């Protein structure tokens, strides 16, 4: 990652800025705040994710489709939707706190951020844990039951130990994302400053690129450690419980108490999330949120006027980077998994690392690298597209990986055996079979690019603006109506894209099968 290196460049010459960092209490505090937030949010998000995943895979609660829909919505949504709507719902003039209960509530601060991050990132944990729980053969639970274990014991002695590696993996993923998140802290953290927002202040407020680079480096260290831990340690410990023929037994019936407790829990969480989206939809059509709830299309008009060029940009950039990520990702995965090439390991690392680099670090890295010759890209659309590709290559890679792992090696060997060379095998067998992986890679990266904020916020210019940073800016200045309206439009586009793709691709491309 030359980007990471370039971040190091300006500060590596002297350690003066590091010394300066240590002498600034505010910055040191924000570092500890970042870590604290990562620890508590990871814990809560992982627990919520686990309970959700358990409820979906191990019980027969009603409304699974609804709960899954909520999770998918959270996964594809703008990363700061919850933060934005929490301020609108539970803020000082929030609809629920002030409007319903008539008392001002202080949402700003660590507690608000904690709740928001939990709701924002539990779907990531859920996604990992669903996979893990699904792979645990229900037969094992029957076996434990048969040997005399009570329900609680089955959970404690069988399900939990087998999912521990998955839980660790999920927790590390959440932690990396919380550490790198920019939007929610910017909206709701208040005085509880974190590194991501401080780095932004250093650049936008003070023009102090070097200090921003120092902050990035300081935060990058724990993130990188988590990444390595996740990739090389935890992922190796995942138990493979698939032995012989898979059990045809269905899931075991859970006790009614457990079932309905889990159902209530999922319902509460999902309701809160649905409320957040409802408030965004509503917020776009009321005159002044918190004061005057009369209907207006004023915000929508404003947003259509201001936001359309940005949305056009977003669509073009996302299309370009989505295509690039899908093709590069699949090619990349093909090389990593099929070809014994020199530098395979390195390629594997490069293809997965960007997922761990917090967006704002990558954004700052890009400004620093492309501000100077040989390649000056600052203030061009190319820097945004390039940045999107770098950020979402892991998404394409993962789709490619999933596709390739489904194709038995012997199918390609059969092609070679029948006389096809490497290229002909690629063209006749591998590529046709990887079509759905390409499609999935494209759609996932496209959606991610549409909603990304933390990296591009450093790269946009008035000419090449994007909707998500605009929303953040509007919200930051208290234009809730406009922010909500633009969010609603953007989300409609993203959800619409997904629904259309799902309808077209049908079962051929499994999109968000959670």
């Amino acid at each position, binding site marked *: 990652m030359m980007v990471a290196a370039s971040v190091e460049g300006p500060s590596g010459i002297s350690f003066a800025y590091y010394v300066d960092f240590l002498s600034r209490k505010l910055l040191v505090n924000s570092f500890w705040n970042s870590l604290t937030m990562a620890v508590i949010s990871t814990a809560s998000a992982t627990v919520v994710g686990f309970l959700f995943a358990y409820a979906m895979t191990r019980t027969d609660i009603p409304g699974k489709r609804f709960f899954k829909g909520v999770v998918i919505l959270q996964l594809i949504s703008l990363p700061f939707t919850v933060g934005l709507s929490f301020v609108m719902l539970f803020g000082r003039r929030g609809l629920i706190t002030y409007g319903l209960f008539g008392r001002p509530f202080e949402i700003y601060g660590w507690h608000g951020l904690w709740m928001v991050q939990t709701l924002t990132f539990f779907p990531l944990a859920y996604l990992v844990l669903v996979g893990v729980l699904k792979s645990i053969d229900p037969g094992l639970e029957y076996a434990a039951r048969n040997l005399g274990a009570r329900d609680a014991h089955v959970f404690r002695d069988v399900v939990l130990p087998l999912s521990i590696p998955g839980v660790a993996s999920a927790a590390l993923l959440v932690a990396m994302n919380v550490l790198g998140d920019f939007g929610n802290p910017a909206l709701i953290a208040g005085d509880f400053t974190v590194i991501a927002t401080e780095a932004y202040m250093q650049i936008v407020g003070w023009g102090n690129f070097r200090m921003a680079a120092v902050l990035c480096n300081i935060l990058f260290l724990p993130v990188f450690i988590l990444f390595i831990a996740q990739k090389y340690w935890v992922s190796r410990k995942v138990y493979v419980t698939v032995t012989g023929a898979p059990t045809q037994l269905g899931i075991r019936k859970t006790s009614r108490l457990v079932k309905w407790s889990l159902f209530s829990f999922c319902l509460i969480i999902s309701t809160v999330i649905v409320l957040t989206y409802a408030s965004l939809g509503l917020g776009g059509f009321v005159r002044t949120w918190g004061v005057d709830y009369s209907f207006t299309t004023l915000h929508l008009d404003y947003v259509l006027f201001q936001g359309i060029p940005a949305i056009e940009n977003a669509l073009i950039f996302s299309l370009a980077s989505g295509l690039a990520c899908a093709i590069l990702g699949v090619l990349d995965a093909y090389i990593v998994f099929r070809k014994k090439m020199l530098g395979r390991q390195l390629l594997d690392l490069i293809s997965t690392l960007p997922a761990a680099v917090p967006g704002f670090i990558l954004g700052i890295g890009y400004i620093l690298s492309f501000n100077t010759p040989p390649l000056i890209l600052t203030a061009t659309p190319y820097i945004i597209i390039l940045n999107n590709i770098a950020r979402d290559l892991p998404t394409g890679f993962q789709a490619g990986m999933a596709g390739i792992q489904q194709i038995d090696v*012997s*199918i390609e060997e059969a092609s*070679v055996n*029948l006389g*096809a*060379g490497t290229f002909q095998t690629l063209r006749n*067998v591998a590529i046709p*079979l990887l079509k759905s992986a390409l499609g999935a890679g494209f759609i996932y990266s496209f959606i991610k690019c549409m909603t990304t904020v933390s990296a591009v916020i450093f790269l946009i210019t008035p000419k090449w603006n994007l909707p998500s940073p605009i929303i953040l800016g509007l919200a930051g200045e208290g234009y809730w109506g406009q922010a909500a309206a633009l969010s609603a439009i953007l989300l409609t586009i993203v959800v619409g894209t997904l629904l259309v793709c799902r309808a077209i691709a049908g079962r051929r491309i499994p999109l968000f099968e959670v």
Partner: protein
Amino acid sequence: MKEAVSLNEATKKFGSVTAVDHATFAVEDKSFTVLLGPSGCGKTTLLRSIAGFYDLDEGQILIKGKDVTNVPPHKRNTGMVFQNYALFPHMKVFDNIAYGLKFRQSPKAEAEQRVRKVAGMLGIEHLLTRFPAQLSGGEQQRVAVARALVIEPEVLLLDEPLSNLDAKVRVRVRAELKKIQCDLGITAIHVTHDQEEALAVGDKIVVMNKGKVTQIGTPTEIYFKPQTRFVADFIGTINLLKATVAKTTAKEVLLSVGPDKVLLTCVSPEVVLRDGQEVILSIRPENVELGGEKPAREGNFLRGEVKDTIFMGAITRYFVQAGGLELIADVQGSDVPLKDSVYVSMDSSKLHILPEAS
């Protein structure tokens, strides 16, 4: 007879494990040769090396007299049937079978004719427009065989192609495979760990263990005249008896067997024995005769006691203790089970001395 495939000191290592250890043997043209051994013995590695999927670390592979050791797999013209069939899931049966012809510049009309011909031979003409996922296991297997045959390979390589089929289908399909191979007069190398299958289809069996070739022979040689303890043990059920050579004549060997030093005669083996030498004697259970009366033959019988019996359908298996020896005897369709005291007798031509232990 001409040799279709020859291996010369072929060796393949994976890290520190030697999967195939200096294998040297020849596969006769138009023969059905079986590579037999337990899992992990290197038989599949050897087959895949012949196909060219592995590069040998040492030695050579010759196909029809031509050294192909360094020829890439797609230029070897070997037709392989994979264990999981490896049909192209995105192509119809017809295109699956025709695939290999694409790289052999055969005109379209001719290619279609060849596909139909081979499909007819395997009885799958009616499946040509289907996708692999719409076929049963047995049908998929036929398609895989057709796809390998249509290219008229120098050698047909079969990598446990029957292991995913039901027991009954397997028996039928293996007979068909053998017949097709015979009718077409092609050379086939078949990998299996199923000794019964090997005996049933093989013209020649190559028994492998721990990467090494232990014995090569016809099914009857492998079955009745195992060269090593491993081969004897691996194939079927066998009685192995420790014995000492008491006396050798031109035609026969007199052996003192077991703790009670029972004397048994045995037809002289090819190896030279000396008096007092320790050897291992083998005899198949079906060659151990049991009777209530004293047998007519002179010598080679002893009195014993039945310890246990298992009814196995066509035969009944007796566990007999005789002269300090534990013997297994299979008797065909015995309506009246023999009990307690019996006479055990063995034909001297059926007793075999394992050369390895000699």
